[in-house]
């Protein structure tokens, strides 16, 4: 436990140090590095749900979308008041950013509770379908919410001096001065990888604790876990909500980096991408999932020249992986239970 704490502090210092060098990094590479960080957060948080707790969720992009939109709209709609409270200095920005990321995460986890409590009664395929449907619902709702740009996407708002807030310039108000508040670009190497360090640290510690073993117990055998007095529903919902929280934070990091979000950024394919990272890395292996997230962020960039074949290569990669290493890149081989068949029932009964 102590070791991981020291490791965590060292990595925070390292992240801070590397961040100072970020001006020297080619902006294209820089962007890929940030995306990798965000993907690591998404994949490790999904790994808690899919890998450790064994509940197959296909709606992670939905939680990400909630975090992205919630944090972005607070950062823009409330920009004037946030500016007056926190000012323009580095510290003020940091508090502001932490605040909106947190709200985004909490928003996503509240929805996680609402979706999780009824749907986690389902198992396997049924749960996957429910969560898939949920992810799509989120996307479609956003697509129809004019206040955050609907299908046009969202990049910021115009605030007129007479108090009118609008997504687009209003011709009737042409005489009045206005200011455009775009989604601020707060996400940098430091913030993205600070969250990466936090999530890896907290998940590692959680899984090593007796409480965290409960997640694995629920995955290994629900009936046995129940017989041991573990409240399985509570554990499943907890994993789901924690995963949703970090997905929401990842969404906030994403929107505060690209400064333009569109409902299509969070579609079904996005969820699949995250699931693929988890499977490729090895369900229930944080280190493997981190590597898979990095590889699957870089790979499409390397394949840019043949981008239309990307999905084919993706699919092939997964098929080969499943054949060669079903436990994933770093996954430990999961122990299968031996199938036990009861002996043949006695033929005779008392009624004979």
């Amino acid at each position, binding site marked *: 436990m102590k070791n991981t704490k020291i490791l965590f502090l060292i990595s925070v210092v390292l992240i801070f140090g590397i961040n100072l060098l970020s001006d020297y990094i080619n902006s294209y590479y820089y962007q890929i590095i940030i995306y990798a960080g965000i993907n690591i957060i998404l994949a490790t948080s999904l790994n808690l749900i899919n890998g450790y707790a064994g509940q197959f969720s296909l709606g992670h992009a939905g939680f990400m979308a909630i975090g992205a939109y919630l944090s972005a709209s607070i950062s823009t709609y409330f920009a004037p008041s946030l500016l007056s409270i926190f000012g323009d200095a580095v510290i003020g920005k940091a508090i502001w950013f932490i605040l909106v990321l947190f709200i985004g995460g909490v928003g996503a986890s509240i929805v996680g509770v609402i979706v999780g409590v009824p749907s986690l009664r389902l198992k396997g395929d049924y749960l996957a379908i429910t969560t898939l449907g949920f992810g799509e619902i989120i996307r479609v709702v956003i697509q129809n919410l004019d206040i955050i740009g609907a299908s046009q996407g969202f990049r910021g708002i115009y605030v007129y001096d007479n108090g009118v807030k609008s997504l687009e310039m209003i011709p009737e108000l042409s005489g009045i001065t206005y200011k455009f508040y775009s989604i601020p670009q707060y996400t940098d190497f430091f913030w993205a990888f600070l969250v990466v360090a936090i999530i890896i640290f907290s998940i590692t510690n959680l899984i090593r604790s007796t409480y965290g073993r409960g997640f694995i117990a629920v995955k290994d055998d629900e009936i*046995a876990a129940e*017989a*041991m007095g*573990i409240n399985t529903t509570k554990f499943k919902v907890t994993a789901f909500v924690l995963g949703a929280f970090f997905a929401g934070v990842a969404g906030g990091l994403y929107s505060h980096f690209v400064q333009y979000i569109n409902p299509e950024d969070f579609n079904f394919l996005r969820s699949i991408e995250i699931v693929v990272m988890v499977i490729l890395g090895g369900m229930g292996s944080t280190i493997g999932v981190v590597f898979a997230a990095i590889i699957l962020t870089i790979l499409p960039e390397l394949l840019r020249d043949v981008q239309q074949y990307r999905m084919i290569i993706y699919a092939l990669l997964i098929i080969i992986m499943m054949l060669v290493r079903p436990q994933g890149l770093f996954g430990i081989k999961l122990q*299968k239970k031996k199938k*036990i068949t009861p002996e043949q029932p*006695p033929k005779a009964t008392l009624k004979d």
Partner: protein
Amino acid sequence: MLRVENLTVNYGAINALKGITINVPEKSIITLIGANGAGKTTTLRAISSVVKSAGGSRIYYEDKDITNLPPHKIVEMGLCQVPEGRLIFANLTVKENLDMGAYLRKDKQNLKNDLDFIFNIFPRLKERIKQPGGTLSGGEQQMLAISRALMSKPKLLLLDEPSLGIAPILVRTIFEKIVEINKSLGTTILLVEQNAHFALSVANFGYVLETGNIILEGPAKELEANPEVRKAYLGEA
């Protein structure tokens, strides 16, 4: 200690238990024998509330009505089930499995003693302490499942077919240990078995279950001597 009255369980349209009544006095070993599909496992699952019992059923534990309480509440009261087919946590080590058994314990400082007690009964588990549960042999897994349940300090232990799929030589050992647990810890045991011979040899009282009904009951020795039981369950012609 445990009174089951008129227990009825339905799986959809299938009537698995048709109103059975069982009485388990304190510190006794009570067995429930019967063929496949008689409803033995269902009885245990209904007691620990993993399956819901139908209206009219009543389960009293230490004079408290526990019918359809959430499973974890029932475990908290000191009633612990060892599920059929050695449902251990395959990806957790032996030690971690045992820790999960003590999950609800408040007196964590006594765990060491209980571990020692368990390793004393099942020395084999101590040798395998760091191994994942899934790599153990069938008999060892059953030992682990029983030990895990003991870690919760149950007053009443529900054992579901401990002999299932275990090498015959180990079956005897397991049953000897069950008696030892009952004697030295004073744990009351409700034992469900297909292996009527062994079950009746260790129990004080037995019930014979057939397609959801109790068709015979009596002291274990009498049941063992009963010609019908001998014919149906003990392989006599």
